[in-house]
């Protein structure tokens, strides 16, 4: 098949489909075993310097913050990250120096809250490289091809644009219609972390609300760390199996972290902690400010419970619950600063 056009972006996380299968056969156990462990253990076991990592959820929604903070704490470095509408997670990881390579669909911004002072400064200063561009569907379909065990997936986006020119895609003539078609390469992140509403000790997981990209991401990632609001009995999973979006055999670690998405939202449970996000947006304007934030919220706390206490404890968490259910008015504390 003649290649009409080739994007110049770096091809992150691609493997030959046979090699990908072999890796799964050798490394992913089908044994129904207890995978519960601490965030510390999960990160030291499954996140390695230089890995290509991906975070589940979307933007400030359903993010595995306990793992993000633990990566910072363990000072992992030279990580490449999927900017698949990655917002707070990637901002913290670029700001802390753990991530220095990004394939960008949407990052360096906090949606309505404005642009990210930290990661934007580091990209503009050259400390963090954007090695490829893509779109949200572009990333979504990299996971889909990976999950399906095929080398690429054809699509009709990214064509004719610089987003395509700077991507890792190729354009060919479709042998069926004869029209040009974009080929999105599969991606297999070395490790992904996804925060869920509930799962059992084996990793069978339920997510309430939109799944975003996590159905596909959970299945293409080589290693998968699940953080969960609660661990439930397997009977609960088996009672309503249609609610399971992630089966145990793709899961490598289960970490129970109530409120583990804070300061991000957990749909149906708690809303964003806007004052905490505003504090980060304000402090991350300078590298000294980033150090101050990380010292306060990451390096000087022993566990996620102590971190939540520092963020306002039960009183704050109850407020975030009421806010999620529209029983408190909207606030935008970051608005004055932008």
């Amino acid at each position, binding site marked *: 098949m003649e290649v009409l056009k080739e994007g110049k972006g770096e091809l992150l996380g691609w493997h030959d489909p046979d090699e990908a299968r072999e890796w799964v056969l050798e490394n992913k156990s089908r044994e129904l075993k207890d995978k519960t462990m601490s965030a510390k253990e999960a990160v030291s076991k499954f996140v390695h310097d230089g890995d290509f990592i991906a975070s589940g959820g*979307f933007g400030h*929604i359903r993010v595995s913050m306990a793992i993000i903070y633990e990566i910072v704490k363990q000072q992992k470095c030279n990580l490449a990250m999927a900017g698949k509408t990655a917002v707070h997670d990637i901002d913290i990881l670029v700001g802390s120096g753990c991530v220095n390579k990004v394939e960008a669909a949407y990052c360096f*911004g906090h949606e309505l809250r404005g642009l990210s002072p930290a990661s934007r400064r580091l990209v503009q200063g050259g400390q963090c490289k954007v090695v490829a*561009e893509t779109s949200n569907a572009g990333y979504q379909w990299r996971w889909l091809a990976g999950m399906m065990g095929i080398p690429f997936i054809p699509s009709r986006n990214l064509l004719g644009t610089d*987003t395509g020119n700077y991507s890792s895609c190729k354009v060919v003539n479709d042998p069926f219609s004869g029209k040009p078609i974009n080929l999105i390469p599969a991606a297999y992140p070395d490790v992904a972390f996804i925060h869920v509403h509930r799962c059992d000790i084996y990793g069978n997981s339920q997510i309430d609300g*939109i799944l*975003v990209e996590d159905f596909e991401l959970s299945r293409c990632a080589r290693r998968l760390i699940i953080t969960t609001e609660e661990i439930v009995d397997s009977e609960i999973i088996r009672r309503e199996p249609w609610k399971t979006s992630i089966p145990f055999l793709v899961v490598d670690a289960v970490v129970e972290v109530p409120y583990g998405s804070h300061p991000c939202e957990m749909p149906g449970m708690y809303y964003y902690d806007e004052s905490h996000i505003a504090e980060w947006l304000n402090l991350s304007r300078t590298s000294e400010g980033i150090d101050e934030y990380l010292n306060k919220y990451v390096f000087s706390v022993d566990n996620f419970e102590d971190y939540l206490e520092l963020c306002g404890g039960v009183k704050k968490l109850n407020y975030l619950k009421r806010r999620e259910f529209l029983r408190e008015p909207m606030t935008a504390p970051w608005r004055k600063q932008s």
Partner: protein
Amino acid sequence: MTAETRYNLREFLAFTGASVLEDEKSVFVGTGLPIIASMLAQKTHAPNLFIVFEAGGLGPLLPELPISVGESRTFHQAIAASTMHDVMSLAQGGYVDFGFLGGAQMDIYGNINTTVIGDHDSPKTRLPGSGGANDVGSFSQRLIIIIANQSKRTFVNKVDFLTTPGYLDGPGARERVGLPKGTGPYRVITQLAVYGFDNETKRLKLISLSPGVSIDEVKENSSFEIIIPDKVETTPEPTDEHLRILHEEIDTAGIVLGK
């Protein structure tokens, strides 16, 4: 617009954006003003407007302005809480009538940049990137673009980075590169005017001027030549009821619209 007007610029843009949307159509919306405009349309002339969010929210009844296009508000009392693969596939398959985006720079063919100002590899200003914009611009039947600050710096001869496809380099270009047939930019809304695209040349063409704005102002605030038809109308203004809905039912904290 003068200081005495009843409404501010952002309220005017939200109202104008809403006016373009039609009832019983589907719209794929981006963050900020596009959401507000779609909510206003749904609460006024287009109650059966089907709002689609890229992260998986299908047909929500939005209770307040979402900060993010993936938060729980985007599937509040929705028809489905689905996945990005589902939404993007529906769009690619032809189920999305309107796309609705903002942009930092735009050229004469409606190509948009939201990726970078300056050189890609050593950027002057790094912007968030495509997000879902390239997908919305590729798949939606009719793309609406809001650029709040039309000037020579935003209406440019060449975008620094072509993030999202307009008509690329002219008639037939979208189809030639393989984009879905018949798709492309439909309206551009700025503080000065509402534009469409000339059928033959696919170049930006003036439709109506904002109240009090002259054709000269439109020309002065563009690096490229805009097609000016013989007949130019004045863009309608929001009523007090529209303004009430915008502030009391949508952006209650004044995040986008101001207090």
